[in-house]
Structure formats: structure tokens, C-alpha cells
């Protein structure tokens, strides 16, 4: 008995080394991928560094930070970032749920309908933005203006008048299928007997949804929220292709503001300070999100 447990601890000890060896690469690589650029960003954020004026990088304390945060675009950008993430999350989760319930019903050609519905998820963000900008939202030739003409309404110039809403529409169009895909799959695993029993007891659609379906979907919803937040906090391609952050700062998010500082004003110092702000914001969001969702995920 004793010797056996000795052997097993020995074996375990040998195993532990192998196990750690296997775990190490992913951890080390991610650590390097995080720490090296991060420390460079932090360093640049404290020095005067503009690509247009080469010279010694002087330590200037928090000047870059105060410059970035007093930029008149700073608060709009912060606000837009949060509005963008919040709206897209709400729209995609609600619409994704509704669509998942719909395609969970039996009807003819359900397979094809599903394929059509999930397709936007596979579209490149740059293509997505171009389709909507040109063929849907163009104030002269776009489909929306054709519809408006048909009803004798003055067509809206979407990207000029409603830039942020337009981008929210594009992103939601792309990510609703993602929510749908996940909800659809988890609905299929719902206990049908339980549902039938509830129906026999006289439960209506809403109470079944509220007390059986929604709790069943808690975890999938958490996943959808988490993954999407990760992607939308640094949304870039759609803005790059359509509005360029404008008009004014109406569709500027934090990512775009930093990009503008770095690659249009060539001010590495200020852009890096912006990068640090973006990282702090992401960490605040991550903290709440991981506390709310992460527990749900690791259980």
C-alpha cells in the first residue's frame, strides 16, 4: 500500500513536469505578446515622440495623457465606444433569440432559411461596410433611398446624419447570425418533455419562454455577450471604410481616435497615452464581465 502510493507520487511527479512543459508555450507566448508591446506603449506614453520631429525622446510626465484626454474628441469617443458596444449587444441578443425561437419551429425549407440567416457572419467586415455604404445607404442610388422614394419620403443620408446608428446597424447585421447560431444549437438541446409537460399544465408561450427557455439559455447568452464585447470594444474596419470617424466626431470611437493620433498626426506619444486609456477601459469592462460571465464559464 505504502510502496504503491510512493510509486504513484513518483509517477505523478514525473508527469507534472511533462504537464507543465505542455502548458508552458501558450502561457509564455501570450505573456510576451502582452507584456512587450504593453510596456513599450506605456514607455512611449511618457515621452515626447512625434515621427515628424525626430529628436531625443524627452520624458514629459503626464503631458501626453492630459493632451489626449482634453482633446475635444475624447469624451465623445469614450461615449461612442460604450454606446456602440451596448447597442450592438442588445440588438444581437434580442434579435438572435427571436430568430432562434422562430427557426426552432418546424416549417418547409428550414435548412435553407438557416443557411441564409447565418451567412452575414461569414462576410468580411470591410466588405460588410462597403455593401451597406454603397448599395444600401447611398442617398442617391442606395436601396433605402429607392424605398424612401417609393413611399414619397425624403431619403435619409444615413452616414451623414446617423453615422453611429449606421455603424451599429452594420455590425448588428453581421453579429446577429453569431448569436442565432449559438442560441439555435442550445435550443435544440432543450428538454422537450419538460416543455410539453408545462404546456399540458396550461403554461403559455411567454411563461415557457420565461421560466424554461431563458434559464436554459443563460450560459449561451453569457458567451455571446463576452465574445462580442471582445470584438466590438476595438471596432475599427467598419469605421475605416465608411465614415472615417465623422462627421465631426459623431462616429469616432476610442480605437479610431488613437489611430488618428498615431497614423494621421504621427504623434506616437499622444497615441500611446490613448492606447493606455483604451487598455484601462478594456480592463474595467473585462473586470465586470469576467466576474459576471467568467464564473458561468468555468463551472
Amino acid at each position, binding site marked *: 500500500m505504502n510502496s504503491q502510493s510512493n510509486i504513484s507520487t513518483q509517477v505523478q511527479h514525473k508527469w507534472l513536469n511533462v504537464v507543465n512543459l505542455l*502548458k508552458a508555450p501558450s502561457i509564455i507566448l501570450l505573456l510576451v505578446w502582452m507584456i512587450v508591446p504593453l510596456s513599450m506603449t506605456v514607455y512611449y506614453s511618457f515621452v515626447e515622440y512625434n515621427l515628424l520631429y525626430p529628436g531625443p525622446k524627452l520624458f514629459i510626465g503626464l503631458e501626453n495623457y492630459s493632451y489626449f484626454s482634453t482633446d475635444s474628441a475624447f469624451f465623445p469617443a469614450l461615449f461612442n465606444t460604450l454606446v456602440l458596444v451596448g447597442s450592438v449587444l442588445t440588438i444581437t441578443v434580442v434579435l438572435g433569440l427571436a430568430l432562434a425561437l422562430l427557426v426552432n419551429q418546424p416549417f418547409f425549407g428550414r435548412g435553407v432559411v438557416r443557411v441564409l440567416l447565418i451567412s452575414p457572419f461569414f462576410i468580411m467586415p*470591410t466588405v460588410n461596410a462597403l455593401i451597406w455604404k454603397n*448599395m444600401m445607404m447611398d442617398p442617391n442610388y442606395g436601396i433605402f433611398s429607392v424605398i424612401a422614394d417609393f413611399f414619397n419620403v425624403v431619403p435619409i443620408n444615413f452616414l451623414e446624419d446617423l453615422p453611429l446608428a449606421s455603424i451599429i446597424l452594420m455590425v448588428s447585421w453581421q453579429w446577429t447570425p453569431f448569436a442565432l447560431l449559438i442560441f439555435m444549437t442550445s435550443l435544440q438541446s432543450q428538454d422537450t418533455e419538460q416543455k410539453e409537460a408545462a404546456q399540458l399544465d396550461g403554461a403559455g408561450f411567454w411563461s415557457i419562454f420565461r421560466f424554461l427557455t431563458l434559464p436554459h439559455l443563460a450560459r449561451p447568452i453569457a458567451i455571446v455577450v463576452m465574445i462580442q464585447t471582445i470584438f466590438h470594444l476595438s471596432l475599427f474596419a467598419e469605421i475605416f471604410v465608411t465614415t472615417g470617424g465623422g462627421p465631426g466626431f459623431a462616429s469616432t470611437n476610442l480605437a479610431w481616435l488613437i489611430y488618428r493620433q498615431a497614423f494621421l498626426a504621427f504623434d506616437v506619444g499622444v497615441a500611446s497615452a490613448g492606447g493606455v486609456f483604451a487598455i484601462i477601459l478594456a480592463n474595467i469592462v473585462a473586470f465586470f464581465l469576467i466576474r459576471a460571465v467568467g464564473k458561468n464559464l468555468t463551472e
Partner: protein
Amino acid sequence: MMLNISQRKTVTHWATGLFAWLVALILFFPILWMIMTSFKTELQAISQPPLLFWETTFDNYILIQERSDYLKYAFNSLYTSVGGTLLALIIAVPSAYAMAFFPGKYTKDILLWMLSTKMLPAVGVLIPIYMITQMGGLLDSIYPLILIFALMNLPIIMWMLFTYFKEIPKEILEAARMDGATTRDELRHIVMPLSWGGIASAGLLSLILCWNEAFWSIQLTASDAGTLAALIASYSSPEGLFWAKVSAASTMACAPIIVFGWFCQKQLVQGLTFGAVK
């Protein structure tokens, strides 16, 4: 007129069906319209009212290939997506396996930390990465993109694989060990066959994300290593209306991954749900 139950069921069946088809067609319309526009001439593309029937032309496709060398960009997309995905899988499979089967005290914290690195916005580290790439003389090369794509998707792949591996019942492994199976046998005959589904779906998602990735491709590449996403972004400047050509380029850029996605949708979902669906 009163309907009996089965008649009423048929009515709701058809009503649901019609409604679902309507919604699906509306949501699919932008893609359909893009494909239709790509087969029109530039004048037909902007005709008012929009043309639903026209003589199809393939000129746009030929022009796109001739003018901007579509195939070069397509191969860059292919190399970077496949390269990035394979690299990420090579790193992630052993790690996720070790974490799922031999979890340590901090495994869960490490996994959460990994996911939190995804929250770091790419712009926050754009300048350092750009400078490192420049110092290495690797701007406009596919190699940094492959590495970045791999690292970018590593956390999500780790999560998907971890949750997938965790579902594999450990009893099977113990039984095999009792029967004298070596670790290699274990991996080859039990773990691998059971995990192909998870590895495939993690790989699929990673392929799609890499193929569509625009931020790093736009920033770090130009004409040599440009991917399709970057090529399409270069069409965004409003130099007159050439929707038909843009549509042809877009259709060619998206078609491979859409068709791929259609075929693999079941496989894709399996891992995407992070074990949420039992």
C-alpha cells in the same frame, strides 16, 4: 368557419414558414444584391429603379483579376489564415490538453487571464508592433501576420479546446491505463479520435476570423503581402461610382469563406458554444 386542430396546425405551420422565409430573405438581401450587382455593368448597377433583370456580364471579374491581381491577394489571405490557424493549434492543443486533464491550482485563473488578453484593444499596442515589425524589416510581409493571427486567436482557441477536452470522460483514460496503454497510445487511440470535433471547430472559427481580419492586415501590409480584407478596404475611397467592380471584388473575397462556412456550420457550432450545449 371553424378550423379543427390539425387544420389550425397547418395554418400556423405555413404562417411560420412564410414569416421565417421573409425574414431570412431580408437579412440575406445585402449579400444577394452584392452578388447581383457584380454581374452588371457600372451603369446598370446604379440604374433607377434598380434592375432586377439584366444581361449578365463577367467583365467585372476579369477586370478585377487583371487590374489588382485578385489571386495574389487571395493566396496571401490563404497563407496567413491557414498559417496562423495551424500555428495557433500547434501551440494550443498540447496546452489545452494538459490543462483539461491535469488541471493545476491556477488553471482556471490562467484561462481567464488568457481571455482577458483578448480584451486589450489592438490599437493600444499598434505602435509598438508596427515599430518592431519595421525594425525587423518585415513590414508588408506575410510572416508577422501569421504570427499575429496565431497569437490573436490563441486565447479563444485555448478556451474552445479546454472546454471540449474537459468533456472527455476521464474514466476511459483510466481504464485504458489499467489495460497497460502508454501515454502515446492514450493520445493516439483515445484522446485524438474523441477530440477531432473540438479541434476542427476551433480551427474553423480561427480560419474565418483570420480570413476576415482587417485591422492588422490594413496596418502592416501593402501591395506585397496584402490580404483580401486589405484589398477591399482600398476600394473605400470614393473615386466615382464603380459599384459593379467593387461588388465583384467583394464577392470573390467572401465567396470562399461563405461556402466553407455553409458546409461546416454544424462542426463550427460544436466548439463555438464552449461546452454550453450538452
